[in-house]
């Protein structure tokens, strides 16, 4: 009983960094933009409480269309990433052995630790009209004119999928790795075909990894800025660009804050929906990754 106050103090000291971190860098800033998003400008340097920033979002088709487009494309990118990454993760987790396995995983990791901008630069150099692909196409005679592959939605999707792959592969491989080989063998032994085993054993087992990977890829995609800006064309706007524009080129912080809140809502809602549909929980899911 004597130790009680001392223990309290220790606990408090241990908790202090976490509380400072979460309080000062996460919670209060979000409260701030929430408050900010409800302030409207009535005159220079005079602001009042109001919903105009949100009204603006709903009444201006431009904004909600961008929003919907971002959401839709992010889901598309997530799905594509999942489909592309699954065979790779399966290979790494269940076929490759020892050194090869470690190598394959490390090779996957490397491009992603190099800056996103370097990767995007690479794609720009490959895809642009004066770029490598166009050059090669002309050199082999497949095209007689320079081909522009950059500045369209396809390029954006390509760049985003590329950027999301690792974050899909790692949780998937982790989940698949934990599947006991004997369970898969039992699946075959009892007469299952490859497809049956994949559908009834491998995929259900990998579900936490799939959900984790999808959540992370979706988050990264929806919140991405550089890739859509640099690869995207004159027709595509990403919602983060709207936030950036409101803050940086319009100096309209309240509007930007409202957009920020909406983006946060969108991502939280889709994550929540994903978890609900697959019956997973956030904590275990993120630990997977």
């Amino acid at each position, binding site marked *: 009983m004597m130790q009680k106050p001392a223990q309290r103090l220790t606990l408090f000291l*241990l*908790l202090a960094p*976490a509380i400072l*971190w*979460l309080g*000062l*860098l*996460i*919670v209060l*800033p*979000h409260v*701030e*933009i929430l408050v900010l998003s409800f302030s409207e400008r009535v005159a220079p340097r005079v602001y009042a409480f109001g919903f105009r920033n949100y009204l603006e979002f709903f009444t201006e088709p431009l904004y909600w269309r961008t929003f919907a487009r971002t959401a839709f494309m992010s889901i598309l990118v997530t799905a594509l990433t999942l489909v*592309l990454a699954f065979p*790779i993760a399966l*290979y790494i987790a269940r076929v490759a052995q020892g050194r090869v396995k*470690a190598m*394959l995983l490390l*090779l*996957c990791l*490397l*491009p992603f*630790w*190099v*800056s*996103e*901008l*370097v*990767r995007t*630069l*690479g794609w*720009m*150099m*490959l895809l*642009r009209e*004066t*770029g*490598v692909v166009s*050059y090669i196409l002309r050199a082999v005679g497949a095209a007689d004119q320079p081909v522009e592959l950059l500045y369209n939605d396809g390029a954006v999707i390509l760049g985003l999928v*590329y950027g999301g*792959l690792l974050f899909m592969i790692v949780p998937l491989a982790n989940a698949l790795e934990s599947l006991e080989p004997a369970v898969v063998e039992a699946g075959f032994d009892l007469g299952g075909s490859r497809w049956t*085993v994949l559908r009834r054993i491998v995929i259900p087992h990998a579900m936490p990894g799939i959900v984790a990977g999808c959540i*992370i890829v979706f*988050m990264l995609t929806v*919140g991405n*800025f*550089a890739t859509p800006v*640099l690869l995207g064309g004159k027709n595509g706007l990403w919602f*983060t660009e709207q*936030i950036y524009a409101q803050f940086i080129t319009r100096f309209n*912080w309240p509007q930007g*804050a409202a957009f*920020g809140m909406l983006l*946060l809502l969108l*991502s939280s809602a889709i*994550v929540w929906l994903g978890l609900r549909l697959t019956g997973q929980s*956030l*904590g275990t899911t*993120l*630990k997977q990754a």
Partner: protein
Amino acid sequence: MNRPSLAWKLYIAAFYVFLFAPLLIVAIFAFNASPFPSPPWRGFTLEWFTGSGAAFGKPGVLTDPVWLSSIGNSFKVAIPVALLAVLVGTVNAWVLERAEFRGKTFLAMMMLWPLVIPGVVLGISILAFFSRLANGLEDWLQTDLDFLRPGLSLVILGQLSFILTISTLIIAARLRKFDRSLEEAAFDLGASRTRVLRTVTLPFLRPSLIGAGLVALLMSFENFNTTLMLVGSDAPLPITMYGQMREGATPAINAVSLLLMLGVGGIASVFALTAKAER
């Protein structure tokens, strides 16, 4: 299942080509003797690394103060971020794995939250909050509080806001694997609590501390979204690169990228080695 089909193997090969194509292109064209980072190949040069600018009108990376100072800025951000991430991450991991108190699950959820906040939103919220804080404190204290204004200090805080989650998770995962009976055994053999910490617990955690530090370093170097909203006059590397890419880049940016790849490759190998030692 154990015998991959040919199609599958081909897919794997194609995937890795896909994965490395952009990087290879970037690396190769760092040596192209042309003012533009695009084909055709105009011959090999090191001008974009060490050139003084005489040949193409723009200096190479290692002589250009813009690149040098942004690399310096990146280090000024990354090193404190890595150190703080390890330090605070260790304390947080301890809280998650060892402490017992009400609201712990809530706190654990909160710690995961930054992972599902888009980086741009993190950036603007921190920007907005700290500018309000700075305004308030300034009115109150009647002095400039520069470090609360956009600039490297705010970038450090912004990056920490989510890198701390990662480092906490990495260290907590290792701590969870720790067999408590090792500590009890040490204690039982007569060690004091600090000695147990020093001789048993921390040595056990060391690989994860190094790992978390390296990951934090890499993430800090790489981060763009949050940083973009918080930079002041000193731009870290990604911000400078972004500016240059919008400006229409010279192969100097390829040279920077190549240096970055080499650095990352180096750190990754250190990481792989410590990971091996862990086993």
